């Protein structure tokens, strides 16, 4: 039993890593631009599909590199053309805008690539388990976790040590002051949106290798990402990171004891957090109002 539990904790961390990648991008955009990107799951799908198209030409590794960048460029354009227009307005408009965008993007994926699922081939070596005892951990999972760790470390380093990153963090706390200091806030937000899309695109490529492609593939990940943010505390990226891992592990552990509830458990956790600690694990007081 203990072994089963340990297996599943490991497994939960792997799944959680995935939520983290998606939730961090969502969280970045939410913190700086005060926009919940309902289309974030569709950016993920787009990243996966782009990788699918590119793989025959530049291979899996090339696609892993190029696809997130293209997704980021797309995100940048969407922000410049659409999202930017609603920053000054009531939040209801940004919600509706990204909601509509999600519809269009999902339908476009279905139109272009068809309603059927598409298989994504991963390099042969990655598909095998790491050892006969740990048969449930394939190299691909290890590889996914490594990529996520790399991406998260990169993101945190970027926010801490680069000029743009520091501005993004500052803008999260007080955008007006940052603007008053002469920073081009419009460009900062566009860039930030692109970084968020990059993370979604990366998650999309990884997900495609794991679960295959279909137009709705991002939908199931959107809600866990929301919950990761709420549980971790709005405004705190570290919180989002923790929240994602926590619900990943909780889901996996529930699978051991009560499999049918493994999806519902994350909502229970959110409920508990909101009752006991409404601002989330690492949320700043006041950030959520």
């Amino acid at each position, binding site marked *: 039993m203990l072994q089963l539990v340990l297996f599943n904790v490991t497994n939960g961390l792997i799944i959680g890593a995935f939520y983290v990648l998606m939730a961090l991008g969502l969280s970045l955009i939410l913190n700086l631009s*005060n926009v919940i990107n309902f289309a974030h799951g569709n950016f993920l799908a787009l990243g996966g599909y782009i990788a699918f198209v590119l793989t025959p030409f530049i291979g899996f590794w090339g696609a892993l590199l190029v696809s997130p960048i293209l997704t980021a460029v797309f995100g940048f354009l969407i922000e410049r053309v659409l999202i930017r227009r609603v920053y000054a307005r009531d939040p209801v408009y940004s919600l509706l805008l990204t909601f509509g965008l999600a*519809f269009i993007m999902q339908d476009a994926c279905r139109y272009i690539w068809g309603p059927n699922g598409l298989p994504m081939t991963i390099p042969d070596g990655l598909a095998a388990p790491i050892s006969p005892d740990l048969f449930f951990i394939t190299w691909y999972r290890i590889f996914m976790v490594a990529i996520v760790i790399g991406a998260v470390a990169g993101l945190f380093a970027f926010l801490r040590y680069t000029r743009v990153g520091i501005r993004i963090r500052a803008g999260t706390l007080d955008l007006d002051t940052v603007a008053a200091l002469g920073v081009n806030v419009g460009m900062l937000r566009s860039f930030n949106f692109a970084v968020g899309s990059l993370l979604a695109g990366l998650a999309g490529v990884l997900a495609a290798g794991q679960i295959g492609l279909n137009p709705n593939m991002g939908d199931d990940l959107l809600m866990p990402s929301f919950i990761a943010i709420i549980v971790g505390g709005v405004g705190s990226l570290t919180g989002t990171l923790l929240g994602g891992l926590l619900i990943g592990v909780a889901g996996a552990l529930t699978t051991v004891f009560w499999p049918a509830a493994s999806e519902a458990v994350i*909502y229970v956790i959110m409920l508990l957090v909101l009752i006991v600690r*409404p601002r989330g694990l690492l949320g700043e007081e006041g950030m959520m*109002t």
Partner: protein
Amino acid sequence: MTAATVSPNTQTGTARPWLTAAIVWALLLTVPFWLPMLGGYTALAARVLVFGLAAMSFNLLLGFTGVMSFGHAAYFGLGAYGAGLTLKYIAASTPLAILAGILLGGLAGTLFGLFIVRRRGVYFAMVTVAFGQIAFYVAYSWDSLTGGYDGLRGFSRAPLHLGPLTLDIVNNDKIFYYFLLAVFAIATGLQGLLLASPFGRTLLAIRENERRARFLGIPVERHIWMSFSISCCFTALAGALYALLNNFADPMGLHYSLSGEIVIMAVMGGMRAFWGPLAGAALFVILQDTISSMTVNWMSFVGLIFVLVVLFFPRGMLGIFQKGTGK
């Protein structure tokens, strides 16, 4: 976080509100006569009424309190399940079913409301979405009671007994339409009275400037909570009617995509106008019905409606006639 928008024109002192109301009621009362001529059908009008009521109830919160819920499908769906479960397991009584629907959705909303009244803006929206998904998962997973993924079936609305008179709302869809219309009239009448009451005025004050309202000693949280609960009750009523319309309730009626549609109906019609959400619901339901018969890519068109409304008609159809800023 809520953009304190200014629209001084919510209660015009002129005769225009009466004129609008007269036009609305004249159109609604004569639906079965003119709709078939325009290629519509009675069930479509019934759907417009149900979603119109849902959008108007939701708008008590968005348009008249200034709080943005993105999880109202939960209360709509709970209303539907409340009605359905009553008809299936308790008694074949339509009024009882409606009452149970209101109770279930309203109580859930009142309880959830306690946790979230301190949130504002996008965070309020996010928490309401997540709460909505809890309801979704309960309905989805509690197979033995709700029928799970397949939905709750095996119930049917019952004929209405009014003293010696029996209304056959089961098989005659025109009578059922007028039954819906009567319920709709009562509900919107109550909403109108509520907004005209001191309580309603206070909600407007909170919407216009929450901080000032707070300084005036208004218990803002309590008012928002009450407004949220009332809005949920009416939305649950709409959901109960939806269950009666379909003789069915299923988890998709609780899903957040429906929440999004309720919001767009309110915004598209004009969230600052009392009848706006009804107009929005009518346009949305009819457009969706028409487009989805013409192309499988209707989702793109619906998405496009969202985008266009946000970018070019933020004040909605009825909002165009109103003064004030369109923010």
